[in-house]
């Protein structure tokens, strides 16, 4: 202990489990992180099943793979926005630091994303075992994602949830801090960067190698890149949030 | 009740009243600072100031860990003080008002003796 500045706060420990409690805070009302994502997943599954059944009834016997399982991913964009716009001001009333709020919310999204990924993998394994519910219909078992096995498939799904969550969270933060003009500017900037990358690939006539890179990297490799990108987005979100007034 | 007197003085006076009229006996426990604060809806620090004033005066004394008690002889002490103040607090304003409406000290004395006030004088 330094004797230079013995502030009164020195003898006070930070109460433990505050981070864990932020996760619990996000789950106090189960609707956002549990009920709605489960509904979206269940609904998408049901609709996919109906479509497979209709197509099967029309006499198509081939492999039927739908993209319905991606629906909940988009919802994580909304969760990211809500966690920011609704819960952040309240977190301030609960005397939380921005860092605690951010890490805790990310952890809550991870818990929710993990649950979704688990359901995704279990469905995929079931589809694998039953030959697509016996009607060759695949909701979760999408070959390209599953090449590296169930664990990698789960990781891909999990990464995607977090990726969308952080995007939603960051854009909501930008909107709250810099207003509609700030958000528009950020989106425009992002668009310009993407167009720039496309232009670069086009002018360098690099598309074949870009395509090759995607194929060679595979779903697992792309997932790992995605994790890295999510990490960068998370850092960006935190830096935007760090000095934002409540 | 407010004559611009500080709040803590008013609180102290109210406790004195209770001792004078016998509702708190000598050697009995006096209301605590917190009780006074909650009852009169005032800040406990203000109530404490009033209580301390009574302690300094010898009206109350503290029993460690139990609370405040009325000192033996407190009532006599207060009576003496009130009698001393009587002229200043009641007689002087009475005479000042009497003078303003044209009554001399003798008129006032007469009024007091005959128990005036029961029948207001007609102009």
């Amino acid at each position: 202990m330094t004797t230079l500045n013995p502030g009164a706060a020195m003898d006070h420990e930070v109460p433990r489990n505050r981070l864990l409690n932020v996760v619990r805070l996000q789950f106090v009302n189960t609707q956002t992180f549990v009920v709605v994502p489960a509904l979206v997943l269940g609904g998408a599954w049901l609709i996919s099943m109906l479509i497979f059944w209709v197509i099967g009834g029309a006499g198509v016997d081939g492999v039927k793979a739908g993209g319905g399982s991606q629906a909940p991913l988009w919802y994580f964009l909304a969760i990211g926005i809500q966690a920011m716009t609704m819960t952040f001001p309240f977190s301030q009333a609960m005397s939380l630091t921005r860092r605690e709020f951010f890490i805790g919310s990310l952890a809550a999204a991870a818990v929710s994303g993990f649950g979704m990924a688990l359901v995704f993998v279990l469905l995929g394994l079931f589809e694998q075992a039953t030959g697509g519910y016996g009607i060759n219909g695949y909701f979760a078992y999408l070959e390209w994602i599953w090449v590296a096995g169930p664990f990698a498939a789960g990781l891909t799904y999990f990464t995607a949830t977090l990726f969308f969550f952080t995007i939603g969270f960051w854009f909501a933060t930008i909107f709250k801090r810099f207003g509609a003009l700030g958000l528009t500017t950020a989106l425009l900037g992002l668009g310009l960067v993407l167009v720039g990358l496309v232009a670069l690939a086009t002018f360098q006539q690099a598309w074949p190698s870009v395509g090759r890179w995607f194929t060679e990297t595979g779903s697992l490799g792309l997932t790992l890149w995605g994790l890295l990108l999510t990490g960068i987005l998370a850092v960006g979100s935190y830096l935007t949030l760090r000095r934002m007034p409540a | 009740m407010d004559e611009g007197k500080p709040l803590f003085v008013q609180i102290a006076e109210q406790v004195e009243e209770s001792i004078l009229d016998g509702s708190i006996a000598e050697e009995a426990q006096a209301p605590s600072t917190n009780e006074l604060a909650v009852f009169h809806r005032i800040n406990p620090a203000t109530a404490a100031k009033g209580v301390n004033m009574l302690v300094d005066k010898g009206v109350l004394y503290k029993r460690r860990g139990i609370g405040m008690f009325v000192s033996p002889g407190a009532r006599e002490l207060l009576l003496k003080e009130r009698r001393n103040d009587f002229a200043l607090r009641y007689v002087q304003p009475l005479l000042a008002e009497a003078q303003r409406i044209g009554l001399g000290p003798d008129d006032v004395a007469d009024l007091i003796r005959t128990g005036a006030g029961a029948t207001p004088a007609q102009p």
Partner: protein
Amino acid sequence: MNSVIQVRNLTKRYKDAVALDDVSFDIEKDAIYGLLGRNGAGKTTAMSILTAQNLPTSGEVRVFGENPYENARVLSRLCFVRESQKYPDDANPRHAFAAARLFFPRWDQGLAEELIDDFQIPLKRTIKKLSRGQLSAVGVVIGLASRAEVTFFDEPYLGLDAVARQIFYDRLLADYAEFPRTILLSSHLIDEVSNLIERVLLIDAGRILMDESAEDARSLATNVVGDAAAVDRAVNGREVIHRESLGRVTSVTFLGRPEASERAAMAAQGLEFAPVSLQQLIVRLTQQRSAGRDRSPAESQEGSLR
């Protein structure tokens, strides 16, 4: 001196306005402070910065000896009840209290439940659907039951009727008496809180206009009423902060308290004294200040008061 909060040369500038202008003050431990002043005077900004919900433009803030910004060690000992607190859209009061119980180490569930009863808060109605008064009551319950070492109440009574406000004041006082802590209560219902508070911090246009004990503040000014000429003689040489006349009768509020002998002399001339309530004093001081005096009367008078 045992101050839990120290503010030095704090300035907060927004794009188009200065909310706090080089403000310095201390907050003592275990006292109830009244943070008084008009709307827009800078009360909310000051509280937001003290609780690290907002950032200063310049100057320094110390809470428990440390900078509160992103400081969980400090923040976990504070509770800030905002007048316009936002809650998650789909949350109900039960959710809000459950959350508060997680984060305030001294939270008292028994007290919370009593208060919920007192204010008749519907626990399962969505917060969005609560009346303004019920919404305020949710904040009041969190602020009181958290028993935080420093609790900030920013106009906590909006929409509460007189009965509910009295419940708040009574509960605050009773719980404070039992569990002393530091409380900053911002309000413009000055009469209602003037007996509750131990110290007054008056903010006007981003500056501290008064930093006094409530007791001293109440004796800061005197009001004298009587014949215009006599009143003028009596207040000659004193700093007059307000004057009004009706026919030959004049009422003047001036700073300071005349000695008993002076009072007797004035009374002999038929002048009457009336106390100046905290509310009157504050209204007069802020009016006088906005009238454009460059020196605040509280400052110029300080020397003679100490």
